[in-house]
């Protein structure tokens, strides 16, 4: 029996019960992700076997298929070829296919990187400037401006996508890296300003005032005193912006096609023979999700702040 009456010191039995339920939930909630990672190491046949295979012979077929384009060939043609030069060619040949070239995945992945890093840098830089001003100066209509910045996040992306599409077509920014960097910078700005303002509020004003009395100008004090102090906050904000750009789909699918397409609209289009190539999709998903999972673990102390735009700080 649970005889404790206290919230402050739960009995060890109730602690154990809570832990057990949480562990079960954590296991269940991680099944879909683990399943996708497992699928990436299956071969095409074992990915579509029923009942689903939990134990299987690991294979890199998914990763090979993800990075290559292949075409089916007759056995005679395959016999006439010189022996395969490396393991992945051998693997493809065992499926009666030959590699015809690299796939688009690497390009899409690096687009995600370029656009992600570019927009993150820009939004954190601009956000830090604005956040500092909001944190330290008497800005006219401060609350209205801050609310305006936040409200831009409420637009459904599709609602502004058509005008942006037309605008970008006129300016020649459609399907370009620069266009997407600008767009993601703007979307991330609201988050960057709100989060960084919270972090800057926590830095005592006295630091930069002391520096200014020592002869620093306001700008010097900002760059040499405040920014280094705010580094943790800046890093956390940057990771949040990066994750957003990395995951964004609606604008990417509507505004990019050949040149600047990122990974999220590309991964669903990985098609094998006779339907979707699940190990290859699994491989693409795994490579795509891996950085986010690592960042989440790094970020765990600041998660709450990030997801609530700084409204909840703990």
């Amino acid at each position, binding site marked *: 029996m649970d005889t404790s*009456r*206290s*919230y*402050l010191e739960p009995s060890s039995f109730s*602690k154990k019960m809570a*832990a057990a*339920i*949480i*562990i079960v*939930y*954590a296991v269940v*909630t991680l099944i*879909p992700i683990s*399943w*996708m990672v497992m699928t990436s190491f299956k071969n095409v046949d074992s990915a579509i076997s*029923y009942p*689903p295979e939990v134990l299987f012979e690991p294979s890199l077929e998914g990763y090979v298929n993800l990075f290559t384009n292949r075409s089916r060939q007759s056995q005679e043609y395959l016999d006439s070829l010189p022996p395969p030069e490396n393991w992945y060619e051998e693997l493809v040949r065992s499926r009666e296919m030959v590699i015809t070239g690299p796939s688009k995945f690497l390009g899409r992945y690096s687009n995600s990187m370029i656009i992600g890093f570019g927009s993150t840098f820009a939004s954190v830089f*601009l956000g830090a*400037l*604005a956040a*500092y*001003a909001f944190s330290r*100066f008497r*800005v006219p209509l401060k609350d209205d*401006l801050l609310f305006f910045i936040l409200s*831009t996040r*409420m*637009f*459904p*992306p*599709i*609602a*502004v996508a*058509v*005008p*942006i599409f*037309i605008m970008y077509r006129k300016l020649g920014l459609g399907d370009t890296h620069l266009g997407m960097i*600008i*767009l993601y910078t*703007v979307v991330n700005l609201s988050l960057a300003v709100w989060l960084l303002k919270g972090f800057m509020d926590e830095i005592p004003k006295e630091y930069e005032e002391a520096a*200014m009395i020592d002869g620093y*100008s*306001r*700008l010097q004090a*900002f760059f040499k005193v405040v920014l280094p102090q705010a580094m943790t906050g800046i890093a956390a904000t940057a990771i949040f912006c990066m994750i957003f750009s990395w*995951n964004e*789909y609606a604008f990417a699918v*509507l505004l990019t096609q050949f040149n600047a397409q990122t990974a999220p*609209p590309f*991964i*669903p289009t990985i098609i094998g023979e006779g339907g979707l190539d699940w190990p290859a*999709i699994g491989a693409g*998903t795994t490579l795509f*999700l891996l950085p*986010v999972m690592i960042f*989440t673990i790094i970020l*765990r102390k600041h998660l*709450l702040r990030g*997801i609530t735009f700084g409204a*909840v700080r703990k």
Partner: protein
Amino acid sequence: MSVKKKFKGLSDKAVGWLFIGPTVLLLLAINIYPLVYAIKMSFTNFYANKIGREPQFVGLKNYIKVLNKEAIWEKMQVTASFMFWTLLLQAIIGLGLALLLNRKFKGNELLTTLIVLPMMLSPAVVGVFWTYLYNPQVGLFNYMVNFFYDLGSFDMIGSSTLAPWAIVIVDTWMWTPFTMLICLAGLRSVPNYLYEAAEVDRASKWQQFIYITLPSVLPFLLLALLFRGIENFKMFDMVVELTSGGPGSATELASINLKREAFEKWKTGYSSAFAVILFVTIFGFGNVYVKVMNKIKER
């Protein structure tokens, strides 16, 4: 000499404008200008794919068309029921998990981080891999359901009665950690002396929960639901990749319908009117909600 002049370099006022200016200008150019442009287009019969054709002013015709279209109300209903079920489930499960995690057992930091993972993933990619889990022939989800309760063969995405639940399940799986984290912050903000005082007064555990825990965590829960409400009203990516609005239009949420009208049928004027209506709705509801939330907080 004035006080400001005591430091060298630009005045604070100049620095302020210099620092805020770029952000405001960018938001005006890439956010407000497109919105104004959309509002302008919503009064015309513009088709973005027909270049060179002068759009004509049609007054409120597009708005009347949107509001009189029965299909639009169906989409709104789909959106409303999606929001209702996801918010309800996420509130209950999220709060439950937070209460359990608040018992500070060993390893709960690590478990929290693990539980949070789904919400950091790309919704579109999540949608893709759930189509695999939901696959009626080989899907793990179907296998596990049948393992515990034999339902035989069923198709979560292909059936118009099950598809709305398919998207509710994925959204709940993905975003319950969000309400959980925020509720947890609420629980940790309750000062200990409240419980100590209650214990002195011999309040039962249940009374402590109803009179102390619940009222303190409520504002946090409401805030979490506000964020989720706005996001799910705009929901697009995950559902597009999972069901693409189908079968038929069983899961065609407002945003998906908007995308079809705007980028497949290219009815720019009409879809802009719809976009403006959606925006006004979200903004209006958001404002009312925040007012109610603040009233509850004050109490």
